[in-house]
């Protein structure tokens, strides 16, 4: 019998500790892990909870992230509640196996503490790893602070394991900016958390000896397409479950999550779209811009996959100019997030002006002033009725101004 771990109504936790507490309260059966900065404390703490008898689980240390996710797949196929954590290069090594997990429809929860990809080597936060995972067939949700890293990890088990979903889910938080920043966190009591998350009701579990199953079948051109289409449909169809779990969580805690979140958007003419901690900093900047007479708002991508096209169109329908922020090196194109927002807006009635800001690579700071500059440029676009800057710009970058692509619209 597990020993009770004491939690207070108000704690000061960093994002890693908060996520590890969610794993403890969710009674995760198996964590298979290989450590990497900045996500290490999540799995390290889970290991200590097991070691100290706070949880009846298995902590399995393996030789690589590839093995870590492989082990998670085995444990999940066996029918357990399974989670792990990784970052950056570790995530990259995991990628091959991430596709296996989603293809087999295994509800593994992966805490991704976002960090830049080398080279040059860098341990700090950007979203390169999250972008690398965006076609892996996982649900992806972004936490903007430690509280949300905790809340969303709890929600993730509910969503992923729901029989109408049965998909693995990543909970993203910004490396260091969230993972190593202690903030007030208001956790659920152990009892309330346990009740909210419930226990896993396995599907096609390999430990069900009355119904032996084969995992990892081969499908060539005769079957593969149908399976991938079914998987994509499942991702798209996860929306009602995501919304149901968020609604239930709100009823329990008062904390509201939506797939697309809008701040000061009721009458906004210009806005910044982003995810991660930058959303919150942008909210501060928007408030300041409003004092200066700019109708500024912020739109947050809470759920990155499935991508909320309709909701984005709805929340952006009256906006004149949009700055889309991408915290990942775009590698010879526009930022991926820009492309997706543009795809949504291209097919809208209003077709607003959309520009792309590359920022924060390798943990480069983005200040309130930086964000205010973006708002000011959006206001200039809105006033002029066309894009007045390069369509893609770099924020807070040293050296001569760097930008790409001119607008052909006027």
């Amino acid at each position, binding site marked *: 019998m597990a020993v009770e771990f004491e939690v207070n109504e*108000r*704690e*000061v936790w*960093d994002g890693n500790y908060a996520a590890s507490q969610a794993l403890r309260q969710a009674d995760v059966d198996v964590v298979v892990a290989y450590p990497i900065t900045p996500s290490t404390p999540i799995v390290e703490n889970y290991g200590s909870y097991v070691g100290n008898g706070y949880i009846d689980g298995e902590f399995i240390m393996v030789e690589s992230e590839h093995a870590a996710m492989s082990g998670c797949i085995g444990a999940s196929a066996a029918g357990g509640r399974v989670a792990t954590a990784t970052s950056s290069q570790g995530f990259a090594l995991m990628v091959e196996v991430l596709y296996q997990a989603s293809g087999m429809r295994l509800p593994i929860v992966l805490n991704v503490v976002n960090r830049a990809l080398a080279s040059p080597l860098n341990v700090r936060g950007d979203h390169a790893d999250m972008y690398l995972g965006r076609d892996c067939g996982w649900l992806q949700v972004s936490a903007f*602070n430690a509280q949300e890293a905790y809340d969303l990890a709890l929600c993730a088990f509910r969503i992923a394991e729901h029989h109408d979903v049965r998909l693995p889910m990543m909970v993203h938080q*910004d490396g*260091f*900016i*969230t993972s*190593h*920043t*202690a*903030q*007030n966190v208001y956790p659920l009591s152990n009892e309330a958390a346990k009740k909210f998350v419930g226990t896993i009701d396995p599907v096609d579990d390999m430990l069900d000896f009355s119904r032996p199953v084969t995992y990892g079948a081969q499908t060539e051109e005769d079957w593969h397409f149908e399976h991938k289409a079914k998987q994509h449909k499942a991702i798209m169809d996860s929306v009602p479950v995501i919304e149901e779990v968020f609604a239930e969580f709100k009823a329990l805690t008062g904390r509201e999550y939506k797939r697309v979140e809008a701040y000061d958007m009721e009458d906004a003419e210009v806005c910044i779209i982003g995810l991660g*901690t*930058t959303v*919150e*900093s942008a*909210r*501060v900047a928007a408030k300041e811009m409003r004092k200066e007479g700019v109708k500024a708002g912020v739109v947050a991508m809470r759920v990155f996959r499935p991508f909320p096209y309709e909701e984005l169109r709805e929340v952006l329908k009256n906006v004149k100019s949009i700055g889309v922020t991408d915290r990942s090196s775009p590698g010879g194109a526009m930022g991926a997030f820009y492309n997706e927002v543009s795809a949504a807006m291209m097919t809208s009635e209003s077709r607003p002006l959309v520009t792309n800001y590359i920022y924060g690579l390798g943990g480069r*700071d*983005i*200040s*309130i*002033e930086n964000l205010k500059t973006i708002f000011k440029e959006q206001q200039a676009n809105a006033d002029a009725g066309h894009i007045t800057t390069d369509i893609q710009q770099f924020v807070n970058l040293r050296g001569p101004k760097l930008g790409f692509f001119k607008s052909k619209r006027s």
Partner: protein
Amino acid sequence: MTEIRWHSRAGQGAVSGAKGLGDVVATTGKEVQAFALYGSAKRGAALRAYNRISDEQIFDHAKFMMPDYVLVIDPALAMTDDITMNDKPTTKYIITSHLSKDELIKAIPALEGKEDRVYVVDCVQISLDTIKRSMPNSPMLGAFVKVSGMFELDYFLENMKRVLKKFPQKIIDANMEAITRAYNEVK
């Protein structure tokens, strides 16, 4: 919003100090942030830790801040690090040093003209006397409590006991003594 910047070396406990401070502040119902900008991750490397304290939820995640307090817990960093960067006309400095305030300001030209906002306390010596090793973070908290007037000393001590509860009683007592001494000795 109150913003604090710690200047420290890895191993001196600035990150723990910032988190401990945050922990105690949170008990007063305020919202806190405690984070650090790590240099090369090895003992002795210069690092900066930060606190934000507010009555409302803190949304600003930028590392950039114009601090209300600068806490320097390494005597040499006071000389070599840019401790006055991004300061305000009201920024208060609490600096660990065996030097007197006059000697210290003479040694750090950047502090000239800020004399009335500079406070000195020998956190290293206090920690050597009480905790029996150089751990200047606890005494700095005592000095901060005095200079900021943010808490009554007794309230702070009671809450720090809770933060330190995983340590043996002897160490908790030594830390309490260190905080109290710095509270009384900061000038």
